[in-house]
């Protein structure tokens, strides 16, 4: 019998042509449009709940409302009071979880691998604030939500974690939601971005950059 490795699938249908990379079925499409949308669901997603001002919070080093990369390239997002979302390269979920678990904290700590339970979308381009302004009531001006800002709010009427994470000087946002709403959010963003010429771009492992 031939042994086959299981293939993970995003809740968002990959735009053809598709390929299998990092153990995930992904879109092999490449776009050089100014405004791009990418399904980043293959990234490792680890949720951490811990006291807001405890040892683990200090070790993570990112307060609620902010996001920053640690020395391993993991994007640490302060997604709620005493709540963090860690985003890392595909397949690293266990390693990321273990790094958090070894930190001693007096309070109750919960570490949860949500890689296959959530959807993650990245939109990139100078018009992303205009796109988001159509579906979210938060002010996307630089003074209010600069690079590294993180918050949870309603996006297209869906509870979504939004992270401003500029990439190579280009304005970029990560949007994180429940897996079952992933396709809806993807479609809603494409619908809102249509007038700005949004195009689907396939997922590529960011490599050394981490996420």
């Amino acid at each position, binding site marked *: 019998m031939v042994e086959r490795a299981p293939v993970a699938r995003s809740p968002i249908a990959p735009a053809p042509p598709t390929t299998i990379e990092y153990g995930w079925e992904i879109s092999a499409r490449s776009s050089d449009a100014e405004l791009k949308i990418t399904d980043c669901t293959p990234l490792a997603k680890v949720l951490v709940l811990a006291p807001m001002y405890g040892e683990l919070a200090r070790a993570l080093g990112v307060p609620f409302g902010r996001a920053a990369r640690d020395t391993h390239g993991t994007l640490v997002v302060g997604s709620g*009071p005493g709540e963090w979302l860690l985003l890392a390269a595909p397949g690293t979920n266990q390693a990321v979880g273990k790094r958090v678990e070894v930190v001693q904290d007096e309070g109750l700590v919960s570490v949860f691998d949500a890689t296959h339970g959530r959807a993650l979308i990245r939109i990139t381009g100078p018009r992303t604030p205009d796109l988001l302004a159509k579906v979210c009531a938060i002010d996307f001006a630089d003074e209010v939500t600069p690079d590294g800002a993180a918050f949870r709010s309603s996006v297209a009427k869906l509870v979504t974690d939004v992270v401003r994470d500029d990439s190579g000087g280009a304005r970029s946002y990560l949007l994180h939601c429940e897996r079952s709403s992933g396709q809806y959010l993807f479609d809603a963003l494409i619908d809102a971005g249509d007038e700005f010429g949004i195009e689907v771009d396939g997922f590529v492992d960011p490599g050394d950059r981490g996420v």
Partner: protein
Amino acid sequence: MILLPCPYCGPRNVSEFRYVGEVSERPDPNETGVEEWRTFLYTRNNPVGWTTETWFHSAGCRQHLIAERHTMTNEVRASRLPEAQLPEGQEERATGGNVAGDGGGAIY
């Protein structure tokens, strides 16, 4: 539109919140009578004017908060975290929306 200032997230559209109800004092179940218990469960003041109520920020930080709201104008003059929710050793956390300076909280 009602704008509610969340102590953690700042001012947000009321559609992000779930209304919990008027803040009232829970009587000690061992000391109270049927009448008083019934009043606690079912009777509300429902004033025309200022009232203190609990809201839940379901589409944001997922925390409960106390807001003082004018029922005629929907003006909110204060919001704070319930005492039971304050991190140990921390004073009452109240804000008009900007909590950027205290090492935690959103920046808008």
